[in-house]
């Protein structure tokens, strides 16, 4: 728990900052325009730099982790997605990884329940909540496009419609809002409750969790409790997107809090483990085909090494080889 305390305090401080900055000393332009632009700049520049930096290191060896039958003789059923040999199969494998967290799904644990029968227990919580969290996060992110576009593209409206299908109250509750909150809360609880995971967690693992919880809570407050003027928010968003920022009067301070936390997340992103978003696509154990014996992989820095060539070897052992009647290249 000690390692979670500091990040918690940090996020509280981050929540308070715009409350003071906007609520008390009216720095609307700073929090509505400057911080978002800086954050966007840092995010995109940082993200690109990181990916380019990864990209500048070569992949000297083709080392996929193979998780199924290789392609060999025709009567052995090749496991195309677990042990891909073509580009298409690799894409299939990556698709399962990125969209369904295939590897995480492997986390089944056999259990013995009453007697020697083995049952594969549902210890897939990590997979389930991680998937729930990520999908909800993605859809929410996608839905936000309605604020930055005019007219709003059909898909965005469509997703919005589906997401808010359940008319429990006015305004309709988004399923993804609940999913995000539930997912991330469970990921957090898992981190503090499961001692093994708590043991290996760093403060920097708690920080994004608290931050995203903060974003989700302020977002939901804004939508369901302390309403803000959505027209004005859209005005601001569009003006930011058009690079002619204008800050409309009278948007509630809760909005600035939400926005500020998002900005912090964006600025933090490129320098943190959240870069797994980019990294998962660049991981050489997953994104390469197991076709090493079919197509030669080139190592750009293939080292020059000192060898022990046959001729030297024969020179060293010639007498013994001859004595034993073993054929040699040179007799003497």
């Amino acid at each position, binding site marked *: 728990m000690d390692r979670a305390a500091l990040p918690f305090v940090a996020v509280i401080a981050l929540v308070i900052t715009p409350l003071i900055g906007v609520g008390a000393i009216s720095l609307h332009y700073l929090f509505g325009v400057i911080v978002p632009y800086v954050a966007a700049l840092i995010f995109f520049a940082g993200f690109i730099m990181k990916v380019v930096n990864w990209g500048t290191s070569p992949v000297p060896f083709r080392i996929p982790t193979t998780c199924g039958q290789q392609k060999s003789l025709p009567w052995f059923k090749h496991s195309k997605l677990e042990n891909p040999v073509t580009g298409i199969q690799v894409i299939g494998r990556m698709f399962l990884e990125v969209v369904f967290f295939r590897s995480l799904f492997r986390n089944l644990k056999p259990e013995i329940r009453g007697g020697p029968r083995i049952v594969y227990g549902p210890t897939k919580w990590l997979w389930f909540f991680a998937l729930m969290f990520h999908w909800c996060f993605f859809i929410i992110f996608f839905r936000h496009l309605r604020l930055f576009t005019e007219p709003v593209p059909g898909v965005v409206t469509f997703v919005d419609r589906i997401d808010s299908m359940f008319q429990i109250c006015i305004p309709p509750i988004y399923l993804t809002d609940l999913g995000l909150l539930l997912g991330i809360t469970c990921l957090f609880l898992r981190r503090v409750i499961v*001692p093994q995971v708590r043991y290996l967690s760093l403060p920097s693992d708690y920080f994004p969790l608290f931050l995203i919880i903060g974003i989700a809570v302020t977002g939901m407050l804004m939508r369901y409790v302390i309403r803000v003027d959505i027209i004005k928010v859209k005005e601001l968003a569009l003006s930011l997107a058009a690079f002619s920022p204008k800050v409309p009067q009278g948007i509630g301070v809760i909005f600035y809090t939400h926005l500020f936390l998002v900005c912090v997340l964006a600025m933090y992103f490129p320098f943190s483990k959240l870069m797994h978003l980019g990294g998962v696509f660049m991981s050489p154990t997953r994104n390469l085909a197991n076709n090493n014996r079919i197509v030669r992989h080139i190592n750009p820095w293939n080292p020059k090494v000192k060898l022990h060539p046959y001729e030297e070897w024969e020179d060293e052992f010639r007498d013994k080889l001859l004595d034993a009647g073993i054929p040699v290249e040179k007799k003497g």
Partner: protein
Amino acid sequence: MGESQGLSALLQKKRADIITRWAGILVDSYPSGAHEFLSNKKNRFANPVGYTIAKEIAAMVDGLINRQDIDSFSSSLDKIMRIRTVQDFKPSEALAFVYQLKGVIRECLDESLSDAEVRAGLEELDAFTDALGLLAFDIYVGCKEQLYQLRVDEVKRNTYMLVKRAKMLVEGPEGDQGSRNLV
């Protein structure tokens, strides 16, 4: 063991408690990052140590309740000690859990301790626990000795053909038969 029926019944009543605490002592002897993992006793294949602790401790507690003689404990004790011998424990640390049973039982029987019959039974149980400790010690030393033997055997096996060739050179082809024993 002796005659104290009353104690057996009491132990039976507290069976679950005793097992949990005694197994808990074993789990506690591992580094703190591993406790949850080891306490999850259901995963026989993902977690053989935890599974073995849970299963064999329960078997031994049942043995105590049913007043089985000490030989019937050796298989359970062997399973646990065989693991602890190859882990990062000093001999005393590897063995301590056996003696800690005394404390476990006293904790579990707290209210009944004033009862004279129970106290007499406890004394017997203490003596029995000491005997268990000695048995565990034998097993521990046996395992260590086996490890040394395995080291020697393996080195011999790894150079099996070398030894065979060396023998051949010294003794001629007849010397061959003996080295088969290394198998």
